């Protein structure tokens, strides 16, 4: 399945909705999309991942890229990720730079 990707910037919060598979074939396109945020005032990067079925190492790298290039001080959230996706992130230890939550409330977070 292809990657589904929607992105919007809402008062300093970059909301990125992911679905399908995120791997080496579509990670470059995803990265290009994220590059549009460079230089903008972003304090939070939120990946809504309920519909993300699979993530490979290239996909994770783009998330790390987001943190490094868009804002080292921005908080990164991973929301509603499925267990398989969570497992990869946690076991590889790449969970340390993001906050993992079931849901996201822009007002309180």
């Amino acid at each position, binding site marked *: 399945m292809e990657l589904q990707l929607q992105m919007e910037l809402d008062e300093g919060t970059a909301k990125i909705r992911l679905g399908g598979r995120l*791997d*080496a*074939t579509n990670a470059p396109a995803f990265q290009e999309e994220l590059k549009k945020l460079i230089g903008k005032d972003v304090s939070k990067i939120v990946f809504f991942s309920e519909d993300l079925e699979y993530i*490979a*190492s*290239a996909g*994770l*790298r783009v998330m*790390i890229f987001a943190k*490094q290039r868009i804002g080292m001080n921005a908080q990164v959230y991973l929301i509603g990720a499925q267990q398989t996706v969570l497992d*990869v992130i946690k*076991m*590889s*230890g*790449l969970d*340390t*730079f993001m906050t993992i939550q079931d849901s996201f409330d822009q007002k309180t977070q």
Partner: protein
Amino acid sequence: MIRRLDAHPTHECKGFSLRSGKPIPFGAVIVPGGVNFSVYSRYADSCVLVLFNKHEPAPFAEIPFFPEFCIGNVFSMVVFDLDYENIEYGYRMTGPWDPKSGHRFDSSKILLDPYAKSIGGRDEWGKEPDWSNIFPHRSRIFFDDFDWEDDTQLQIPFEDLVIYEMHVRNFTAHPSSGIKHPGTFSGIREKIPYLKSLGINCVELLPVHEFDEFEHSRLSPVTGERLMNLWGYSNVGFFAPKAGYAATGKYGMQVDELKTTIKALHKAGIEVILDVVFNHTAEGNEQGPYISYRGIDNKSYYMLTPEGYYYNFSGCGNTLNCNNPIVRNMILDCLRYWVSDYHIDGFRFDLASILGRDQNGAPMNSPPLLETLAFDPVLGKCKLIAEAWDAGGLYQVGSFPSWDRWAEWNGKYRDDMRRFLKGDAGMVPAVMQRLQGSPDLYQWQNRMTSASVNFITCHDGFTLMDLVSYNDKHNEANGEDNRDGSNDNSSWNCGAEGPSDDPEITQLRLKQIKNAAAMLLVSNGAPMVLSGDEMGNSQDGNNNAYCQDNSISWLNWDLLKSHGELFRFMKQMIAFRMKHDVLRKSSYVRNTDSNAEISWHGVRAWEPDASFDSRTIAFMCRRFGCPEEPDVYAAVNMHWECHSFELPAAEGNAKWHVFANTDMRPPHDISEIGNEVLLDNQHAFLAGPRSVVVLVSKLNQRKGEDNGTAVTDGT
């Protein structure tokens, strides 16, 4: 950014877009638009790149290297538009089949890239492989970035190390480890708080390069269980981490997982040393499989007899031709890669004496490989530790070429201390050397205590509990009629072979373990503790458990409850060592002049008894001109009877306090640092049979002022 001129194809083949590649670096590297493949062979005539979709039984493409893609003996090309995360690749090499001349080319075989940074095929530990697979160990392509943040090598001075030798899987595979991902790199990360609480500052990992746990797999004649290659001293690939050791191996993320683990260990102040095996490969002798090297360039990679058979200095079928310039460069590339990409702090070289043999197997005076490693800039801050012997009879403890860089596993330390521990006569002179960091072995070369890794036990041989529980090895479960493993263990079972209900025996065993730990941790040189010894782990008398992927090898964490006193003792001894600089001298302690930092004693102060029948020795460490630094005194009585040790006077107004006395039952066997108990009689101490006493001098405090009452003797 301007697009590179070489980022577009020049050739087409079978629907693939290609161009001539770059020969260096070797291996497969992601470049703009594609992947650069580079592999060398001195004697091959031609080469074909074979591409598989991940896990597929048959290749989806075979792309020959055009003649114009070759430079020297290197085949290199860029293949554009590859879905690199989902492919696996190998090579077919064509060349002469002439075993007498050393050539064994066979183009029907698909070969692993010797520089593969990630290897598929054994992604999950112990998962039965498909034996009909035409390409069982597959090179993979990996995007080798990682966010190390500000991590670097820790560069802990050698003399300050306390090394913990461990096996990734054995450490947490047992259900009692209570962690989420047993037996993995990730499991080590979960146990970092434990390692911190023990106080070690360096882990030495048994091989983590990709190997095949199913190599020589068979059933145990005793238990019927499958025997595996658990230890991994048999490399499939030198550049790739063992996928089956990663919880994420099935997702192909073992590289990230290992790097994350190393980063976390570094954050906790713990160095990582890798046990590396460059003496042989998993291809065995002429009967063995084609994995990579044999089919790529047999004559360069292996030491061959004049008839073209494999020399076997490793005891494992073949011998890597380490001082062939091609192989030497591969080893250097490999170690540089592990240092620069994985931030590894040091290496322990398995059967390192092989690395000093020439291409005909003869030992060299200044082996180029060892010299290259000693002076290499990338390895410049790395610890280099040799297992200074090999299976071909070369034994170089004390004489391994060092250039002031190489340290050694001090096999003589192990042998002498074991014999002293079990009460052998005639050991005192040797033990005096071992306690000082073995100047008899190393000082003549102007080397220092950093030349010596002191150990009494290691993965190879009895655990410490078994050393005091068995006179003989019990390796029947290995299926080799108890012929494997060393017969020379210098062990003593304390009165009964194996497990015992006799409290006298079990108490003596615990005491002997503490004696060993105490001696190890007051010796100059870098101590190495075998994982599990701190909780009395046993392998049921198996002294060669390389194939026992089961409870024989797995560390049983419940032992922490039943043998908590051993953990406490080891932890406090480590803390004591770290507290007292005089036990961690980089240069040899002065032992002759009137301001000697170490003075020798015995049953009588200032009169060590090094005679043949003596089994007692004591020493005092003192730093002159540093009155604030306490003296340390240790009395070792390996005789089966009590001996009263006359004490030298502590410096100035200080008084002797008891830190450890292995003859006492817990909690009086050892103190917390700072809570040492004032000794009532400052002139003599009665050491119990087979016991070690450690005293520390402190400024006079009134009796009972620090932690209870003063003690008299240790009986």
